[in-house]
C-alpha cells in the first residue's frame, strides 16, 4: 500500500478498521424533548403501572403545567437492581424487596436513609403471602401447618431467585416460630417437610402461577395476596379459592429515588413527585383495585371486605433485620441450603 512497509500498512489499515467500528458506535446527540421518567420495577407490576402512569401524567400536568412521560422497565427486582448498578439510568425504583433497594443504597446510588424519606418505611402499599387452592378446597388447606402434610403438594417460586419465594419462606418460618415457640429443631423439621412438598420451583412469581394454573401442578400456589386475587380475576373465580392464613408476613413494596441518576437526568423533582403521587388517595385507590393493601385510611375502609384481617409479621421483628435474614437464611450455605441438603 503506497510504498509503506507491509506490517505498517497492515497496522494502519487495522487501526482504520478499529476507528471505523468505534465511530459507528458513538452515541447520537440527545434532542430537546419532554422530560421522561424511568421507573424500574418488579416483574408482575406491569399492569399496575400501566394503569398508574397515565394518571400520574395528568396529575403532574395539573400541578406543574408540564407534559412529561413515564417509561417502565420490568424484571425480577434483583435483576433490576443489578442493571441499575451497571448503569441503567432509572430515576425511581418501585421494588418488592427491601434488600434490593438496600443494595442500591450500599452502592451509593440511593440515599442511606431512604426508608425514612417516605411514610410507612417508604412502602406506599403492602401485601402478604396467601394461598390459592383449587375449587372447593379439596385438601382442606386453612393454615401453614396444612402445607407440611404428606398429601399436599406445593408450588411457589424459588426463594433463591425470587423475592416472592423469599417472602413465602419467611412467612412459613415466622408461622413455625410462633407455633413451636422458637424451638429451632421443630421449626427446621417443619421447614424441611414444607420445602420437600414443593413440586416445582420456578424462577419467578409469574412462572409459578403458570405452573399451577396452566399445567395443573400442585394443590396450593403460594404467592402474594395481590397476585392470588388477580389470578382469580384472570382465570375464573369459580375454579380457584383464596385462603389467607391467620398469620403471615408483611410484604413491603419499597420505593426510592435513585438520587445519583435522577440528578444526572435532571429529573429530581419529577422523581420525588412520582413517589409522592403513589401516596395520594387517587393512587391508593388504584393500588387497592389491584389487590394491594394500602395505608390510606379512607381507601382502606372502602376496600376492607376485600382484605381479611390477618396477623402480619414484620421481618424486622422475627428475623432482626433484612440483612440478618438474608445472611442467615438465603446466603450460600445458609439455612435454606441446609434445609434442602440431602
Amino acid at each position, binding site marked *: 500500500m503506497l510504498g509503506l512497509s507491509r506490517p505498517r500498512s497492515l497496522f494502519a489499515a487495522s487501526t482504520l478498521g478499529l476507528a471505523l467500528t468505534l465511530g459507528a458506535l458513538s452515541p447520537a446527540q440527545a434532542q430537546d424533548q419532554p422530560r421522561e421518567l424511568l421507573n424500574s420495577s418488579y416483574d408482575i407490576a406491569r399492569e399496575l403501572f400501566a394503569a398508574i402512569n397515565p394518571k400520574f401524567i395528568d396529575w403532574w400536568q395539573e400541578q406543574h403545567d408540564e407534559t412529561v412521560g413515564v417509561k417502565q422497565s420490568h424484571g425480577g427486582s434483583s435483576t433490576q437492581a443489578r442493571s441499575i448498578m451497571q448503569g441503567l439510568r432509572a430515576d425511581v425504583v418501585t421494588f418488592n424487596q427491601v434488600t434490593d433497594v438496600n443494595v442500591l443504597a450500599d452502592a451509593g446510588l440511593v440515599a442511606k436513609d431512604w426508608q425514612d424519606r417516605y411514610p410507612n418505611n417508604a412502602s406506599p402499599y403492602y401485601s402478604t403471602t396467601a394461598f390459592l387452592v383449587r375449587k372447593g378446597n379439596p385438601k382442606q388447606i386453612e393454615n401453614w401447618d396444612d402445607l407440611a402434610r404428606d398429601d399436599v403438594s406445593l408450588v411457589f417460586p424459588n426463594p433463591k431467585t425470587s423475592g416472592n419465594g423469599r417472602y413465602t419462606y419467611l412467612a412459613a418460618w415466622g408461622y413455625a416460630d410462633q407455633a413451636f415457640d422458637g424451638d429451632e429443631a421443630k421449626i427446621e423439621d417443619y421447614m424441611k417437610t414444607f420445602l420437600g412438598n414443593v413440586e416445582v420451583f420456578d424462577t419467578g412469581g409469574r412462572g409459578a402461577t*403458570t405452573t399451577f394454573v396452566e399445567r395443573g401442578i400442585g394443590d396450593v400456589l403460594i404467592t402474594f395476596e395481590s397476585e392470588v386475587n388477580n389470578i382469580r380475576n384472570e382465570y375464573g373465580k369459580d375454579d380457584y379459592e383464596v385462603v389467607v392464613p391467620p398469620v403471615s408476613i408483611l410484604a413491603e413494596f419499597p420505593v426510592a429515588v435513585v438520587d445519583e441518576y435522577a440528578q444526572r437526568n435532571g429529573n429530581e423533582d419529577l422523581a420525588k413527585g412520582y413517589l409522592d403521587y403513589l401516596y395520594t388517595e387517587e393512587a391508593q385507590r388504584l393500588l387497592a383495585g389491584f389487590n394491594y393493601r394500602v395505608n390510606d385510611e379512607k381507601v382502606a375502609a372502602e376496600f376492607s371486605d376485600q382484605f381479611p384481617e390477618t396477623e402480619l409479621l414484620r421481618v424486622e421483628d422475627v428475623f432482626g433485620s433484612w440483612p440478618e435474614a438474608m445472611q442467615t437464611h438465603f446466603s450460600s450455605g445458609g439455612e435454606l441450603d441446609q434445609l434442602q441438603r440431602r
Partner: protein
Amino acid sequence: MIAQALMRRRERRVLPGFGLSLGISLTFVSLVLLLPLTSLVGQLSQLSWSQYWFLITDPRLLASYAVTLFGAGVAALFNAAFGLLMAWVLVRYEFPGKRLVDALMDLPFALPTAVAGITLATLYSSNGWIGRLLEPWGISVSYTWIGIALAMAFTSIPFVVRTVQPVLEDLPAEVDEAAMTLGASDGHAFRRVILPYLWPALVTGTGLAFVRSLGEFGAVIFIAGGKPYETEITSLMVFVKLQEYDYAGASAVASIVLATSLALLLAINLWQGRFIKRLHGGRG
C-alpha cells in the same frame, strides 16, 4: 497465522482490503468475545484457589453438573440419530413440502428459547396435548430429566442436521448404488461406505449440539422444575448466584461450563483434523 497471512499477501487476491477486514474482524472479536471473557476472569481473580474449589464442589452444584451432563448427553445422542435421519430424508428424497421442512429445521435457532421452553412445558405437562397421552404410561416429561433432555434436543438439533446435510449432498447416490452392485447389503453399505464418510460431520454436529445443551438456559428453565438435586441445571445455579449478587461465585460456576465447552470444542477440532488427515493420506 498472521505471519502466514502476510506471506500470502504477495499472491494476488480477488478481493482487496485484507488489512482493513482483518482489523474490523479483530475489533469485533475483541468486543463481543474477548472482553466479556476477560471480565469473567477478572471476577474470578477475587477468589482464592481454596474458595474456588469449595464453590465448585458444592454437593448441590455437583448434582446439577450430573443433571446437565446427562440431559445434554441424551439430547446429543437423540439428535445424532434423528438429525442424521432428517438430513438423509432432506438430501436423498423428493417430496412435496420438502423446502418447508428444510426451512423448519432452522426454527429452533430463530425461536426465542424461552418460547420453546414454555411451549414444550405446556405440551408435555400432565394436562397438555402430548403429556396427557403419556400420563397413563407413567411417563411424565415436564419437570423431570426427560423434559430437560427434550428442551436441549429441541434447541440443538439444527447443529446436527446442518453439519451433516452438506456432506451428504456431496456424496452422490451412485456411491451407495455402487456399493450395492459390488454385493454389499443395505446395512453393510451404510456402515462401511456411507457412515465413515459422514462420520466427521456427524461427530462435529453432535458435539456442537452437546456443547450448546450444556449452556442452555432459556428453554430448559421452564420445563426443568428446578428441584434441588433433581432437576436443577448448572446454568440455573449461575442465575441463582447472580440473584444473590455473588458475582465471583457465578463466575466460578460459569467458568466450569466454559472450560468444559472449550475443551470439548477443541477436542472435536483436533480429532476432526486428524481424521481428515488420515482420510487423505496426510495431505488434508
